[in-house]
């Protein structure tokens, strides 16, 4: 089945630093989503980006479909960015396959 690998597993930042999170997947996908999960659990969709580059606020996602990889760039990190970032893929007629996530901790 599909597999999703995320790196790094964890990341510690000082407020204001930038970060790059990586997601590699084992098969082609028609949809790729980045999620944020707060300490406490709510899952929030950040970006849907099956190919190309997309921006929202301080987040930029770049997906290179033929290389089966996606990245999420966080610029000017803030303490409120702390939490777990999850990458997930699916093809139509399938549920999402998630990576184990990158746990981000931002300190003032």
């Amino acid at each position, binding site marked *: 089945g599909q597999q999703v690998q995320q790196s790094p597993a964890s990341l510690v930042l000082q407020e204001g630093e930038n970060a790059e999170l990586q997601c590699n997947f084992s098969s082609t996908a*028609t*949809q790729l*989503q980045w*999620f944020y999960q707060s300490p406490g*659990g*709510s*899952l*929030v*969709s950040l970006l*849907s980006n*099956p190919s190309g580059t997309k921006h929202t606020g301080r987040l930029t996602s770049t997906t290179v479909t033929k290389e089966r990889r996606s990245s999420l760039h966080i610029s000017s990190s803030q303490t409120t960015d702390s939490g777990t970032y*999850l990458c*997930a893929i699916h093809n*139509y*007629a*399938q*549920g*999402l*396959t*998630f*990576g*184990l*996530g990158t746990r981000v901790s931002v300190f003032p």
Partner: protein
Amino acid sequence: NAGVIQTPRHKVTGKGQEATLWCEPISGHSAVFWYRQTIVQGLEFLTYFRNQAPIDDSGMPKERFSAQMPNQSHSTLKIQSTQPQDSAVYLCASSTRDWGGQDTQYFGPGTRLLVL
């Protein structure tokens, strides 16, 4: 738009009891998904419905777990004879599931199930 609603938010059952979890998808969304999250396994897909019809239950444990979607406004996940290993956060998501385009899944807050 209230988002995906899940009830109860927390449930504690004794081993061997039945647990029923409820999900109300976002109005107008045609697809409903169930996932389970544990620290060890992470987030795992269980099953999904489109227009109330079961489409893929490949992630569902073959015994004791069942899911239904009797109408557009709610879905249930039932676990019979609960076991301690069923303890997890159960998440429901919905999407427009537009086959011709891209769809985004929106998640509910989850039901935290603890089996003692």
